[in-house]
């Protein structure tokens, strides 16, 4: 099986992307900043600095692997399927598995650079003192295990998808499954063992213990290293190593499955009559379509661009799906959790909603850029300003119902349990980020070639930026003024640049 040609091609393409250098420089700078901030905020009295910084760095890396790697990998095969270049590869003597292996090699290296970038800082913790070899080994093994599981999630999602939203969603779901599996591998032995009674009474608690253990959030490892015998430590280390081997095996298995899926996709076998029938009934119900058209006719007259954006079933599903999903999640939370925990979980619900908004924002006019309709629209009497206004307005509208559910849940819980959380800060952050995201997303959607880049930039600038400013200014509510001001300035600047991009026609995807 040959895969070298694919590998070479992938590396050439990688080297040609100038953005990559900046992404790397940016990540390295971010890590260095966090490191400095952590050191400067200082350990409590009597503890060595390394002991304080190391678990935080490890947790950061652990989280980054599970979040970034699947997203980074998600579109690697599906993009080729979409662009029709996958079929071309099979005209050469390459086998599907060879293609998948060749493509995965680049992904492994890209993911490893993430770990490597953090290595100097993890090693620096040694110099600061208080970190043992056990900490270091456990961190490395757990992170590599996570890395292979996260890569498996991304590759599998990419091989099974054609469109990027599906690839991204599948990657996130698969990586959730992978993380669950990893945690379960720590939970199950204890559960079975003599001290399992506690876990049996609270499975949720068991998994949050496992998550804390894997991310070393409570500095469990250094306590273990101090208290446990050498035999216990080496058996724990063996356990980590076995998990890594299992993760590598899973990755290999995923590559084989991905190869099969890619071969199936390359043959593009026509859909069976049953599939056609299903599609006709559920995806193109003509009578429903007619009814829908009659109903939306008014909107087409008043605002054709809004009509265009709300036309697809996808847009409708996004709008009401998020609303419904949030209602279900809030109901489950309020039923099974204490009100205190319910309020605490709202930060996660808000972040999930912002994730949805970022997807929509970064996808602005992407289809229109690809099929050329944007060029056609710009030679109608429709102005650039109208295009921008309409898109931003529609992203807001799309998430209005879900946002209403979220805000209602927070306010209702807060009125029962006043002052138990910084509810005001939560809502203000949510408001700032949700309001600015469509501007940021629209700009990057117009300027970047690939959706994933647009999404990463959107999420980074509108979500991570204000939050990290708050972290640096240590979370004070008064500190809200700075992120608020910066987010506002950023959206004004990007709004002007989006207008400039449209006016100067710099969004063209297919320049000769």
């Amino acid at each position, binding site marked *: 099986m040959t895969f070298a040609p694919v590998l070479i091609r992938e590396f050439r393409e990688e080297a040609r992307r100038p953005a990559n250098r900046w992404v790397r420089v940016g990540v390295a700078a971010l890590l260095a900043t966090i490191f400095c901030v952590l050191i400067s905020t200082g350990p409590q009295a009597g503890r060595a600095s390394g002991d304080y910084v190391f678990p935080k760095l490890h947790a950061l890396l652990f989280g980054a692997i599970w979040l970034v790697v699947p997203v980074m990998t998600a579109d690697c095969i599906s993009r080729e399927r979409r662009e029709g270049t996958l079929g071309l590869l099979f005209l050469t003597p390459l086998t599907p598995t060879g293609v998948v292996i060749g493509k995965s090699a680049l992904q492994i290296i890209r993911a490893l650079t993430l770990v490597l970038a953090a290595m100097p800082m993890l090693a620096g913790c040694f110099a600061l003192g208080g970190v043992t070899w056990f900490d270091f080994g456990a961190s490395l093994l757990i992170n590599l295990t996570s890395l292979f599981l996260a890569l498996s999630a991304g590759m599998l999602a990419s091989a099974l998808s054609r469109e990027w939203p599906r690839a991204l969603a599948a990657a996130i779901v698969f990586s959730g499954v992978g993380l669950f599996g990893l945690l379960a591998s720590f939970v199950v032995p204890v559960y079975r063992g003599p001290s399992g009674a506690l876990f049996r009474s609270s499975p949720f608690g068991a998994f949050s213990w496992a998550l804390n253990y894997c991310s070393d959030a409570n500095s469990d490892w250094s306590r273990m290293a101090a208290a446990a015998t050498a035999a216990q430590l080496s058996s724990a280390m063996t356990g980590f190593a076995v998990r890594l081997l299992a993760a590598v095996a899973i990755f290999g298995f995923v590559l084989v499955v991905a190869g099969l899926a890619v071969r199936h996709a390359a043959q593009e076998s026509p859909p069976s009559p049953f599939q056609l029938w299903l599609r006709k009934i559920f995806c193109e119900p003509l009578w429903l379509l007619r009814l829908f058209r009659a109903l939306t006719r008014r909107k087409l007259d008043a605002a*054709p661009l809004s009509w265009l954006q709300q036309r697809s079933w996808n847009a409708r599903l996004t709008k009401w799906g998020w609303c419904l999903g949030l209602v279900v999640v809030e109901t489950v939370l309020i039923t099974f959790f204490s009100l205190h925990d319910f309020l605490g979980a709202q930060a996660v619900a808000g972040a999930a909603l912002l994730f949805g908004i970022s997807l929509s924002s970064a996808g602005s006019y992407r289809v229109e850029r690809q*099929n050329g309709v944007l060029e056609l629209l710009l030679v109608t*009497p429709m102005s650039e300003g109208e295009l921008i206004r309409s898109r931003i307005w529609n992203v807001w509208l799309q998430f209005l119902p879900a946002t209403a559910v979220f805000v209602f849940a927070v306010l209702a819980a807060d009125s029962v349990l006043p002052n138990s959380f910084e509810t005001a800060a939560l809502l203000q952050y949510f408001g700032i980020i949700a309001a600015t995201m469509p501007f940021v997303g629209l700009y990057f959607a117009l300027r970047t070639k690939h959706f994933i880049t647009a999404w990463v930039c959107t999420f980074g600038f509108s979500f991570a930026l204000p939050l990290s400013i708050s972290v640096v200014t240590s979370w004070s509510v008064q500190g809200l003024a700075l992120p608020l001001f910066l987010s506002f300035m950023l959206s004004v600047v990007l709004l002007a640049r989006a207008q400039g991009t449209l006016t100067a026609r710099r969004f063209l995807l297919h320049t000769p």
Partner: protein
Amino acid sequence: MTTPAAPPIPAVSTANLTRVYGAMTALDTLNLTVNRGDLFGFIGSNGAGKTTTLRILATFLTPTTGTAFVFGHDVVAAPNEVRRILGYMPDFFGVYKDMEVTEYLDFFGACYKLPAAKREQTVKDVLELVGLSEKRGSLIGALSRGMQQRLGLARVLIHDPQILLLDEPASGLDPRARIEMMAVLQELQRMGKTIIISSHILSELETLCNRVAIIERGKLIYAGSVQGMEQKHGGRIYLVKLAADSEKAAELLRTRKEIAEATALDGHVKVTLAGADVDASLIAETLVPAGFRLLELREEEVGLEEVFLRVTKGETQ
């Protein structure tokens, strides 16, 4: 007493139109006039600057320098006036595959701010005109290339423009679809529309267009009728058969300024006269006094493609 009528405003006129992309001059001081009612062929090889020109006329791009007027409206200063009377079909389809045919046209009608009451009838009419009436309820993704191209034409017609700009509308179509497309264009010309159609194949437009312009590397090389071009650049070709010394004969012939080109090939000399007004007897008058023995003098047919290659040759090298 009647005052003499002012000359009618041309459909399109450009003056020193130039467009620069970075260091690359895609369009170089183009001066072009298209009259009302013309079916105008705009010809050039790939990368000659056709799309750039049409995009500027359609108000999609702005020129770096120079001016362009469409029915008297400046494309930079009054783009909305131009957009209302101009239909632009790019060299891609620009469709949503999951949209219905009527829905698509309805949408663009709304973008051109046609009132809803009028739109329904207009959509019906343009579909009729391009021959897509039976397909009105189909999804666009299910249409063939030729049908999608005709749908593009229907879209261009939705706001009843006076001038149509069509960028390589026939590329990628099979011969039958191409002929159908040409028939629709002729019908539109009869309806009084001005049509500019670009192509990289001259012969495709030879019978269709009443006037053509040829550009190469952003420069206008020729503008006028097809026949005019044949006369101007078609300088006839003669084959001269000699008893011996064809190399020397070619050398001698090249010294005459009325002869554009003379090359020797195995016993023959291929002679190209510089213009239509040059008499072929010149060849004999040059060769015989110099002592060459002329065996045969025969005229060769010059095809339109040959003319095109000749016109653009100096520029593409």
